[in-house]
């Protein structure tokens, strides 16, 4: 009987309560644990090669011949390719993305945006390998023709069959579109309606209102969209691993190039010893880039919310 009173079983109940709280706390620390162990593993595996090859020689060397008899591990071109490729993809993708977001949030009739918005979401869900597949079969042949046309009289040009920096940049630009569109659109929608009304009442046209009032007001959201786009572009591997070519060169438009990510994907399979360790160093460089982008992002988000208060 004792058991069924409101006083009974209190001990057992509080034991359950305690353990529930402890279990949830442990769950929450999983993310912390994961990030810390990833950080530690990236550094532990990436740093030895820096010591063995030499920091300057590795990071600023331009010759990448890991399997030669006298191997050379310079990854400068790989780093530069990632930076140049990502920037170009952003320059190309962000305007289209932001303008599409404006279309969806501001100018489109409701029925039209009800069709396009799910389409954008679908674009985000398509597996990256499919982008790569289409890149190889559609983009690369086009690029090859362009290449043959431009370098018709050149003696020194090495033909890439269309797998070059431009192809990779185009694929990346398409892949960042959904990210940019979604986040810019919600930023535009968050702009208070009375700002628009005030601007229109002052006699500004709709387009003037959008570009001079709404866009500046949504600035921090759009910057977030760009930063996330950078993160997605610099980390993408599978879509561009076959589209970007297979040798390490300076990041010029018609050169076959390797990105940080594609170097890892295409060489990890057969790399051994020092070569393998250098690939981990490439992973470390990528990791550092991503961490910097993340910190920038938190800064922006924090700055944005501080201003709102």
């Amino acid at each position, binding site marked *: 009987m004792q058991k069924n009173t409101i006083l009974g079983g209190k001990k057992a109940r509080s034991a*359950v309560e305690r353990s*529930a*709280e402890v279990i*949830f706390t442990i769950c*929450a620390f999983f993310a912390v644990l994961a990030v810390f162990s990833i950080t530690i593993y990236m550094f532990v595996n990436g740093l030895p090669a820096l010591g063995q090859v030499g920091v300057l020689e590795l990071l600023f060397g331009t010759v990448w011949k890991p399997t030669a008899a006298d191997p050379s591990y310079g990854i400068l071109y790989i780093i530069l390719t990632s930076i140049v490729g990502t920037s170009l993809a952003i320059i190309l993708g962000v305007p289209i993305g932001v303008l599409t977001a404006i279309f969806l949030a501001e100018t489109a009739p409701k029925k039209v945006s009800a069709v396009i918005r799910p389409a954008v979401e679908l674009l985000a869900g398509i597996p990256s*390998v499919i982008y790569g*597949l289409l890149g190889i079969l559609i983009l690369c042949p086009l690029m090859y023709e362009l290449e043959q046309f431009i370098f018709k009289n050149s003696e020194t040009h090495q033909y890439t069959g269309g797998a070059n920096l431009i192809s990779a940049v185009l694929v990346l630009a398409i892949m960042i579109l959904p990210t940019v569109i979604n986040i810019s659109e919600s930023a535009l929608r968050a702009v208070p309606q009375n700002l628009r009304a005030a601007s229109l009442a002052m006699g500004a046209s709709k387009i003037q209102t959008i*570009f001079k009032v709404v866009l500046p007001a949504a600035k921090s959201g759009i910057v977030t969209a760009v930063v996330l786009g950078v993160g997605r572009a610099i980390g993408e591997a599978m879509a561009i691993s*076959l589209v970007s070519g297979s040798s390490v060169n300076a990041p010029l438009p018609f050169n076959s190039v390797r990105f940080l990510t594609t170097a890892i*994907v295409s060489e990890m399979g057969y790399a051994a010893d020092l070569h393998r360790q250098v690939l981990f160093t490439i992973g470390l460089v990528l990791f550092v880039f991503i961490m910097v982008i993340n910190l920038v992002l938190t800064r922006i988000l924090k700055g944005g919310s501080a201003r709102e208060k």
Partner: protein
Amino acid sequence: MKNSICQKKIRVSDYILHGLIIVSAAVTTLLLVGIMCYVFVRGVGQVNWQFLTTVPSTIKGTFGIAGNIVNTLYIIVITLLIATPIGVGSAIYLNEYAKPGKLVRLIEFTTETLSGIPSILFGLFGMVFFGRTLHLDYSILTGSLTLTLMILPLITRNTQEALKTVPDSYRSGALGIGATKWYMIRTILLPSAMPGIITGIILAIGRIVGESAALLFTAGSGYLLPKDGLGYLEKIMESGGTMTIQLYLSMSKAQYDVAFGIALVLLVIVLVINILTRFLSRKFDVNRI
């Protein structure tokens, strides 16, 4: 008359900018339509019963992705079994137990960071930590553990959002009539937040199906079906490539027909997942009102 307010001033720049907006939207839409149509046209001839239900056979010279489909299912199930409780638990802690402060900020920052790490780096980490340090080698388990880290933020965030929409009056009501906190969470909060949790799970399935870089060096590329009996369990420790991995491998061997067949299957799955999440979030909204 020229300067009357009744006459609309024509601004050329307005027309240009408006034109650009429409062109951009059209480009985005055409890209999607183009991609879907191209994959459909090239893939539809490849997909048939034999393609979906057999494994590749050199003797018969046929190709099938049954093994890859089974591997994908294995990885989805195992990953979700591990990630869902942790993710939901973490969200419950953040929303219901934790007091705002440094600790919460640390957990939220790391969750955010985790979702920003590119999948290739998860792949590297999984290969070294689960594969080599824990001696799981190339196996479905290694792949699942790696993906667990990747989808954890997705599930945590969706659960958190769902928990936030549960009105506070539910909580105080339950606590007020004498329910303990855990009882309140179990019987009031979790059922109310269920649509959000399920949306998170479906989104996670979408990510797992589309993932390739994180699996290439962790789950490997095995394509055989599990053997009968104990084989179903042993399969967890064997290498197994998902459909995306097989697509990548076919693509790098220039077997484009096979690749388009798999691409079509993947697109259909992505489409179904998209429709499901839409349906769920709509249902979710109705419940809130």
